[in-house]
């Protein structure tokens, strides 16, 4: 069996689009922000 043709072509080149919807947890102190982050992850059921 031999291939019909060996043509291999790049038919599209693109940069993946990122939605960039990051929820920045901001509080008065970094410790509070860390606490809130853990709480958010728990609420989102990923922790």
């Amino acid at each position, binding site marked *: 069996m031999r*291939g019909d043709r060996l043509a*291999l072509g790049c*038919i599209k080149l693109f940069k993946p689009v990122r939605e960039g919807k*990051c929820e920045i*947890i*901001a509080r008065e102190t970094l410790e509070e*922000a860390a*606490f809130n982050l853990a709480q958010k992850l728990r609420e989102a059921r990923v922790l």
Partner: protein
Amino acid sequence: MDRYKNIMVYGEITDGSLSSITKELLGCGKILANDLGEELCAVLIGNNLGHLAKEAIAFGANKVYLVDHPLLQDYQTDSYLLSMVKVVEQEMPRILILGQTSIGLDLSPRLAFRLNTAVVLDCVELSIDPDSKQLLQTKPVYGGKGMAVFSSESYPQMATVRSKSMKPLEREESRQGKIFNVNVNLDQTNIRTRSLGRVTEKAEGIKLEDAEIIISGGRGIGSADGFKQLEELSKVLKGSAVGGTRPACDAGWISTTAQIGLTGKIVTPKLYITVALSGSSQHMAGCSGSGTIVAINNDPRANIFKEAQFGVVGDWKMIFPAFVKKVKELLKE
């Protein structure tokens, strides 16, 4: 082209079972087969592997080709290549897919050369062009900064597929399929190399590829002691593991086996917690398939915040201990 029909998957076997990449390839192959109205075939090569044929059918194969021979006990380039050439030349598949694994990378270019066709390596998406019915092969390029779609006019259209980029089908015992034994004339003269021994890598805890939660550190962690803090959280979270970026591994702060990214492992955990990690495209190429990404970084312009769903901007040394403390409290509840 009309001579070529069906989708064929090369099935890898690990510790006597179908490997996870094989199940993923069968899941992907089934979608392609349905789109073309053709059948999905699996090739299994090894020794005493009859029981695995039904397993491949349960994961979606319509036909299974078994090449069973004592000389095929372990992967060996010459004997496996001969076996694959025999099966492919006999069955003439339209599409042939293999895993982007050490075996797939060894076998696929040699096989493509023997079959006088082309192979596209490291695909993360495969689909069928609805008009031409050609296979469209999508893969990351330029270190993960871009994506390219390739199409080949030579048959079989060959691709290797990156681990965890495709989803396996649910296992269904009731699926029906046909099993064919393929005889390949093999003897020691076909085999130009021999295995002198086998060394198994020692791995503690959960493998990164299997972890549901990964805590990953970057250059900003600054030391091996810093990674111990990440390990402390990993001990608390069931099913978790610790990973790192290439700079962190190169610095010796964490084992190179824990490296995630373009030149490391590809992971798809449900939760990916990044600490002091900028999110370079090379790193993200290994974790962008994660369910939820969390970023802790002191640079608000870091790329990781474009990839993450939740983030905290600030010094990780201040944030992380408080985060671990709160996680422990929540888990106790």
